[in-house]
């Protein structure tokens, strides 16, 4: 077993455990902190897959911006273990069982998609900033500009929604 396989196993188990802790921890603050760790490990997976640009963007956008937003909201609304609502035990069991059944269905559906020993031809440089930038600014210029309009509308929308209503 090579070194990269060991790294993959460590990262994958870390990802899965942190994702499970996000769902099962009682305190919302702990959920947010576990989710930050989970996003860092996903960035590690991106580095393993030779997608360096996306790994850096993932850390900046998810672990930086989005999780700070979540943390601020959880602290602003003063959510903690005492105010946390819980579903009845039966519904919790039903949730876990349906999640597991969905996992089985997805596995069975993907079983025949690619041969299990399919291996990439060679390590390439497609994850570098140069390649991604070429794609993004040559072929996907219009979607890029539309994304900026989407950001503008999201910004205005969130300000309008979160503003205090005048009676």
């Amino acid at each position, binding site marked *: 077993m*090579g070194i*990269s396989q060991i790294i*993959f196993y460590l990262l*994958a188990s870390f*990802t*899965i455990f942190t*994702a*499970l802790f*996000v*769902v099962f921890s009682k305190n*919302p603050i702990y959920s*947010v902190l576990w*989710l930050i760790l*989970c*996003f860092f490990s*996903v960035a590690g997976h*991106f580095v*393993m*897959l030779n997608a360096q640009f*996306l790994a850096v963007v*993932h850390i900046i956008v998810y672990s930086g911006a*989005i999780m700070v*937003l*979540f943390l601020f*909201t*959880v602290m602003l*609304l003063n959510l903690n273990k005492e*105010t*946390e*609502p819980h579903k009845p035990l039966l519904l919790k069991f039903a*949730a876990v069982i349906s*999640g*597991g059944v*969905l*996992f089985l269905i*997805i596995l069975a559906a*993907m079983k025949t*998609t*690619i041969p*299990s020993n*399919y*291996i*990439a031809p*060679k*390590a*390439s440089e*497609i*994850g570098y900033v140069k*390649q*991604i930038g070429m*794609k993004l600014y040559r072929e*996907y210029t219009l*979607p890029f500009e539309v*994304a900026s309009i*989407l950001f503008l509308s*999201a910004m205005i*929308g969130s300000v309008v*929604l*979160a503003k*205090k209503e005048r009676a």
Partner: protein
Amino acid sequence: MENSIQSIPQNWYLILSSFMFCIGIMGVLFRRNAIIILMCIELMLNAVNLLLVSFSSYAGNAEGQVFVFFIMVVAAAEVAVGLALLVSIYRNIASTDINILSKMKW
């Protein structure tokens, strides 16, 4: 690290990302706090991102990574609007419990 892609079969990434997706689904069904549900949706988006990046690197095609970039853009916008909605809901009913928000329930 240069050739880590060559010693890992892609099926492992398929299994990992589908498991992450199912954990997200399970979290949406499991919790009643709307903020945690938004976080679980982020988890599902991340699973899809991981799958897209793995397909793009294994196929040697950069378009998948461009799509991941756009998914990140949409996720950021979604979180901003969703949290603003939650804050205004909290201001009205002083809770983020989804069972209280049942006026539109059939």
